[in-house]
């Protein structure tokens, strides 16, 4: 060991101490930077992983799904526990017996109305038998509905298992009735019509869904 190495000047000692401090600071800084980078990258990776999980789950498992019987329909009128006796040839007073202004189930004729688009009013007792088979009956007040309204209704409902007909004197411009359920509408663009179809068209709520809606009575004024 040389004397000069052994006995450093104060200046040298201070310089070394400073250099040491600077090195330590640089190391700390580098470590901090690295940690920050790791945090950022792993955060991004974690985020991507969560996103991937969510995306695959959504893509493979489902569009959001709601069971038909759980669809909520504003202003829905329900008629539970209806009888379903064939009463030919006596007429049924649907208003008096069940409080229905347009029939939505109950006793009815043995002869069901064939589903289709009619431009004349139909017999209640026949139409109700079609409701028993799962049909939806869409009616309009002929004094309120335009031709364009009728076309719009036709386009909005399925071709099968539906009856479309005028119903003079009904309490709303447009109505949709199924076995035990009914809505009233002021316009044909009412979203509740689709909800009603999704919930009640060929519904297990009807006593005999899927039983025929053809091959019986073809009412007057069949258009399609």
């Amino acid at each position: 060991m040389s004397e000069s190495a052994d006995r450093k000047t104060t200046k040298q000692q201070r310089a070394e101490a400073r250099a040491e401090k600077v090195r330590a600071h640089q190391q700390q800084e580098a470590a901090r930077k690295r940690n920050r980078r790791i945090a950022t990258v792993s955060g991004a990776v974690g985020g991507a992983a969560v996103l991937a999980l969510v995306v695959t789950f959504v893509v493979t498992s489902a569009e959001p799904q709601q069971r038909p019987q759980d669809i909520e329909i504003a202003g829905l009128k329900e008629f539970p526990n209806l009888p379903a006796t064939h009463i030919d040839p006596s007429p049924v007073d649907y208003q008096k017996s069940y409080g229905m202004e347009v029939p939505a189930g109950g006793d009815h004729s043995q002869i069901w109305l064939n589903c289709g688009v009619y431009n004349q009013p139909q017999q209640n007792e026949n139409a109700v038998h079609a409701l028993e088979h799962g049909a939806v009956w869409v009616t309009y007040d002929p004094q309120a509905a335009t031709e364009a309204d009728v076309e719009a209704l036709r386009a909005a409902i399925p071709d099968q298992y539906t009856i479309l007909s005028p119903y003079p004197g009904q309490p709303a411009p447009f109505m949709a009735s199924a076995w035990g359920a009914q809505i009233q509408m002021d316009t044909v663009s009412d979203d509740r019509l689709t909800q009603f179809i999704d919930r009640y068209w060929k519904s297990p709520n009807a006593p005999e869904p899927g039983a025929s809606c053809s091959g019986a009575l073809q009412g007057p004024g069949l258009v399609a």
Partner: protein
Amino acid sequence: MSHSQRSTGLTAFVVTVLAVVLVAGSLIIGRTSAGADPQPTTRSAEAGFARDMQVHHDQAVEMSMIVRDLTESPDIRLLAYDIATSQSQQAGQMFGWLATWGLPQASPEPPMTWMHRPIPQGDSHAAHNLPAAVGEVPAVMPGMATRAQLDELRTLSGIAAERMFLELMIAHHEGGVDMADAVLERSDYPVVTDLAGSITKAQQSEIQLMEELLAART
């Protein structure tokens, strides 16, 4: 300096590998946790088939019941009886699927849309001649008779009614086979492929029978 560059490179490499592994793992977990055999959704080929084939079958039942009232021929009456009862039963199966899957019987989109979505890739039937775009959905289901044709059938009787019934029903069955083939190309859902498979077999053999019955009436 060069040492710290190397360690940065290494960190980046490790992080990239980790990222790939993690994302791929998540994709796999997401897929498997969604269920190996997920229930068909409302716009699936399975649900579309269940809805449209009910409509198709309902018309076959209607035509069969019409012709039974128009003819005394035991061959035709038995054929019509067979078609009406078996297709009613099958339509009921499809009705039940939708109820079990918690789906509306009503379709959220025009009939036949499912048939015109691209066939899933990697399928050996991918060359099948179907339009790929959903925009090309035809207005009429394959093989469906028009209301005018059914009205005409009702005015006939005897051999004339039998001939028209056979012609309409052969076309109807051919359309039904096309629909069943379309779902077989798009689905692995067992209860659906089982029924679709038996529909193609049964209807193809009935087409043969009906062609013989028709030839005997020329």
